[in-house]
């Protein structure tokens, strides 16, 4: 259960998102043909219905949180992130973005090995030796399964290519 303040902020966020969908995303990114014989057949019809439901629900969250008695501090979940947690989350975000961009250039197998080892070290693991072993074995095993058994062309990258 979130605190009253957090719940109101969540409701406002949902309402804002719904407003953006209704008044910016749908008019800009849904192409409507010139002649639509029935309004309900328009490609924008369902997105509009969904947007309005989301808007109403967002407001409902705000109203409910504002009117209901606030949960005591002992029950309310704390959304605060400590500094070490924030640092690990930021490192993970950088790692995931880097992973995506290196899949083609470095190759899926080598990228996966680096990601595995990075995560093992990021979490301060005591099993570093086995972490490195697993980081080498697992991507290679998956590569051979998907390439040789399933016939999937796993991206090899431009640096070191596997058989």
């Amino acid at each position, binding site marked *: 259960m979130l605190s009253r303040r957090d719940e109101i902020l969540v409701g406002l966020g949902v309402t804002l998102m719904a407003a953006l*969908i209704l008044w910016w995303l749908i008019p800009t990114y849904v192409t409507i043909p010139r002649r639509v014989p029935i309004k*309900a057949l328009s490609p924008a019809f369902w*997105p509009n219905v969904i947007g309005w439901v*989301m808007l109403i629900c*967002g407001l409902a969250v705000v109203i409910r949180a504002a009117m209901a008695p606030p949960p005591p501090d002992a029950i309310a979940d704390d959304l605060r992130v400590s500094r070490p947690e924030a640092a690990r989350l930021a490192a993970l975000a950088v790692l995931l973005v880097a992973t995506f961009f290196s899949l083609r250039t470095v190759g899926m197998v080598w990228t*996966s090995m680096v990601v*595995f080892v990075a995560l093992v070290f990021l979490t301060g693991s005591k099993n570093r030796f086995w972490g490195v072993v697993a980081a080498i074995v697992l991507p290679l095993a998956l590569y051979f399964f998907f390439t040789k058994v399933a*016939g999937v062309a796993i991206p090899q990258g431009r640096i070191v290519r596997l058989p």
Partner: protein
Amino acid sequence: MTFMEALAAGFTLVAQWESIAFLALGVTIGVIAGAIPGMSATMAVALTLPFTFALQPIFGILLLLGVYKGGIFGGSIPAILIKTPGTPASSATALDGYPMAEQGRAGEALSMSLYASCIADLMSNLALILFAAWLASFALNFGPPEMFTLIVFSLTIIAGVSGDSLVKGIIAATLGLLLATIGLDFIGGTERFTFGSVDMRGGLNFVAVLIGLFALPEIIAYIRNPEAKEHRVRGMGYSRLKWPDFRRSLKSIFRGSAIGVFLGAIPGIGAAPSAFLSYSEARRASPNRENFGKGEIEGVAAAEAGNNGVAGATLIPLLSLGIPGDVITAIIIGAFMVHNLTPGPLLFVNNADIVYALFIGLIASSFLLLIIGAVAIRAFRYIADIPSDLLFPGVLVLCIFGVFAINNSIFDVAVMLVMGVVGYIMLLLRFPAAPFLIAFILGPMLENSFRQALLMSRGSLEIFVRGPITILFWCLTILSVVMIIRATVRAARLKREAARSATRVSATPKA
């Protein structure tokens, strides 16, 4: 194809060593995944899905069904030994299972859990065989308006999987519905939310979305706070299940199985309410009711029977109507789609051999569960010892390879990573992920049937009440909505009272 011909063709498909091997492999993977604290049957099914693409349809689907069955039982092992239910439905098992383990009777509790699971699973599979074909033949008469009203009714599933807040469940569902509209419009062929990207014209890949939503948030949560909980694993003890104890629990096992079958066949209810209802009914009817919660073996039997009785029955709406009964069957739909099979009434006409092969395979899975479960109980200590700091990086690598393998698409990997972040934010802000996924699956079916019906009627809304079937589904929807509103109001009142009493307690000055 007559019933006997379909049965014979199905038997031919299953009577290959590969079918049994993949089923056994699936049950093993499921039991292990269910038994690992932090993993779940849902995550195990999602991660296994990409590995089924290279297999023949029957092998792939049997593998996934094996994971599903094994995962549900596997969740009861940590529930009994370390009071950490592997699945929400196993929470009921922990009520009596853990006290039994504390008394040194873990072996007895685990054996009872296994036998109750296998009996309930078998009964559930028999119910599936009896009712699915009948329901499918009825559904063959459905046109777009009937389909639309059925899906509207099925969307009330969301109430059952919304957790604490129905409004948040609906918001999550609207997000799923919105994401399902991405791509080319099926009537006019115009673009919706593609942002000019060619990759998005085909819509978002279902498997990438579900793996991102169900596997990645767990990994992100672990990276944020890697200090793993200390699990105190109880010893097995030397007690073994005795025949008189098993015999007196049989009534609860059959009652729990029947409850599981009934609740499992209704989309959206799921295994957890079934397990708790079965448990409370057993307590009400038992002469040892005062022992419940303190280590009563009948409590373990009832909870596990209610939990596993759902497993086969959830496949009834999936196979006969194409409607997923819960999150795991929603994932299993993906396996059917990948192999160009469409669950629903036509599956019984066009692919009757596969349907009957699945039925026979499911019966076999109950017996395989009995053997593999017995081994897993003894091997649990080694399974639980897999360190999280190796498990979660491994899961991430599995996700990357698996999602790429679906379409050979790096774009799908990006979708998975983005959905992982979305899923984690939803987890933090207490938005349930299950309504999102169910709406994402049902969304295109809902919109297409609505628009097809309107095209048929040239815009007249009367088509949606054109016959007894549509009217029946509207009535069921109204009934379901009324029940949801009543339950929500009651839950809100209880929550308010709990909050008030907690405030009073915290405000009372300490002596």
